[in-house]
């Protein structure tokens, strides 16, 4: 899951980025409103976190810009103002949820999970395919009830695959949603990580879940 954080307070932006990365999200941080809008429009993010008070372009304008471009990415707004009208304006301009500064990190993460869940048609708390289960809240992955330990990137990759089961996921799609903008697309890092995942999930089992679609990418499916 790839998230863009638009926040001008460097320290605030940094700890949000760090907290999200520790939860295996791919995070891009932007301190300038106008540039933030640009990035949001050209990259396919899964979630935007926008501070309402920004230099050069107010957060509200970013919301309007994103929604005018028909981008349906969920948006969480951060506001320092406790005034109700600011939040109302934000929600009306296309935001999906808000948090008032200062906020608890746990609440931020829970709201992000809720917003990401909202995108998929079936929205269970636990993602399940065959006997493989992934719980986004606890980040626990099990197969046939057996716990599987994954690194942050492996987990992020698996979550992305599980949210799009039965669909062919190309390497650019995977890199866009699992890695942030610092990722170098001309490497075989994706293939390496898919192999790591295979080793932990499919190895020694009769039923393989991760399939390679030759010439295009990967797919997660039960049969």
């Amino acid at each position: 899951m790839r998230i863009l954080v638009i926040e001008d307070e460097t320290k605030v932006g940094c700890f949000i980025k760090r907290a999200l990365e520790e939860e295996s999200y791919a995070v891009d941080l932007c301190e300038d409103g106008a540039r933030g809008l640009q990035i949001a429009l050209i990259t396919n993010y899964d979630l935007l976190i926008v501070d309402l008070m920004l230099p050069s372009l107010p957060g509200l304008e970013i919301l309007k810009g994103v929604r005018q471009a028909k981008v349906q990415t969920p948006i969480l707004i951060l506001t320092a103002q406790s005034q109700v009208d600011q939040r109302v304006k934000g929600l009306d301009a296309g935001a999906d949820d808000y948090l008032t500064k200062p906020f608890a990190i746990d609440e931020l993460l829970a709201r992000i999970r809720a917003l990401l869940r909202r995108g998929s048609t079936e929205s269970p708390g636990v993602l399940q395919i065959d006997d493989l289960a992934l719980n986004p809240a606890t980040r626990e992955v099990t197969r046939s009830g057996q716990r599987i330990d994954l690194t942050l990137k492996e987990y992020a990759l698996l979550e992305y695959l599980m949210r799009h089961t039965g669909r062919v996921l190309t390497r650019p799609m995977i890199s866009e949603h699992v890695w942030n903008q610092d990722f170098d697309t001309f490497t075989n890092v994706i293939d390496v990580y898919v192999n790591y995942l295979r080793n932990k999930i499919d190895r020694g089992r009769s039923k393989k879940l991760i399939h390679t679609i030759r010439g295009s990418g990967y797919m997660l499916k039960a049969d």
Partner: protein
Amino acid sequence: MPLRVRLTLWYGTALALILIIFSTVLYFVTARSLRDAVDESLEETAAAAVRSLEERGFLPLVNEDELMSQFPELARIDKFFQIFSPSGTITIRSPNVKQHEMPLSPKALEVALAGRTLLEFAKYPKEPPLRLISVPIIFRGSLLYIIQVGTSMDSVEATLNRLLLVLLVSVPIALAVSLAGGWFMAGRALRPVDAITLAAQRIAGGDLTQRLTVPASADEIGRLTKTFNGMIDRLETSFRQIRQFSSDASHELRTPLTVMKGETELALRRPRATDDYKIVLESNLEEIDRMTRIVDELLFLSRTDMGEVKMERQPVPLDSLIEDLHRQASLLGHERDIQVVLRATAPAAVLGDELRLRELFLNLLDNAVKYSHPGGTVEIALTIEHTQAQVTVTDRGIGIAQEDQSRIFDRFYRTDNARTHTKKGTGLGLAICAWIVESHGGQLKVQSKVGEGSSFTVKLPLAPAAAKRPLTPS
């Protein structure tokens, strides 16, 4: 007592007094003129009788018929006629005097004997009073007889009684009608006041957007309404400023709180390396310092608002102060590779508080250094213009946009550029500078262009010549 009742009562009392005085005067003037008319008529009749008797050579009259033919005017029923002998006994009288004996009064006789005419009242029980005139007839020095003409005051009294009755009835009615009218008028005149009261209550309830409708007329109520609306305008503005200020203040305090809460929570989520904790603690310390600075400066500003900040008024040698600050600013600039140059100086002393003035110029120099690009130059100059000392601090830094220049002295106002350039400011420094300059009776101006730099000019009145410079021991 409500104003309406009071107005009506005042008005009613005044009107009642006027009506009573008017009625009394009317009554007595009417009574007087009616009685005068009676007297006049009596005198005329008596004079006519005397003339007739004269024509007859003052021969005594023997009977009523003769009397009546002699004086046809006596046939009129409203008058009667009596003739007395000099001794006062009745010799003859007109036929309409029947019921009573009406002897000549001793006073009338006495006056007649003295040869004069007398007008008098006579009162008999159960009868209206009579008005009598007694005229002595004197021929060749001796009193022949006394002619008395009388008339009843009946019609005069009746007229007066009617008048009294009319007055007694109409005055209270007029008073009552006027009071009702007065009550109504007072209510009408006071209705706008009620409207003002209602609006004031709504405004006191917190709705500062309420305004009164200004009446078309420019009367007292119109002026009151305008004054009232003007007052609410000012109230609304200052409330808005206060709201803006507290929202700004809470925003400025919330940001460091957000950082501290976020970083601490993140650090506590899992075990970390010691260095990680150290970084968080150092960052938190920075935020604590920032908050302390904001709170200190806010406290100082609110004390200036309350007028609690004392200002010294001592002669301050501005030139040596500037030279000293130049050295300090040079150290500040050194860290960022910025050169601070003292362009000009002149001996100048101002009356004021040295500590505050130091704070003022240090703040301006600190800003100049902060918003300069590394390798840049900051200039200070102290010159004298007429009766003012002028200190200019110029940088070639990021500059301030035209639309921001009027607002940079507002509390918490920070331009986007300033926010991006340095995260350390509190947004209160220039507000404090402005206050210091103002309380020294000076002016603080800014000239700036985005990308080219800013120039802040402080003008302070020079100290009077006598206090020019404290003597330094040589």
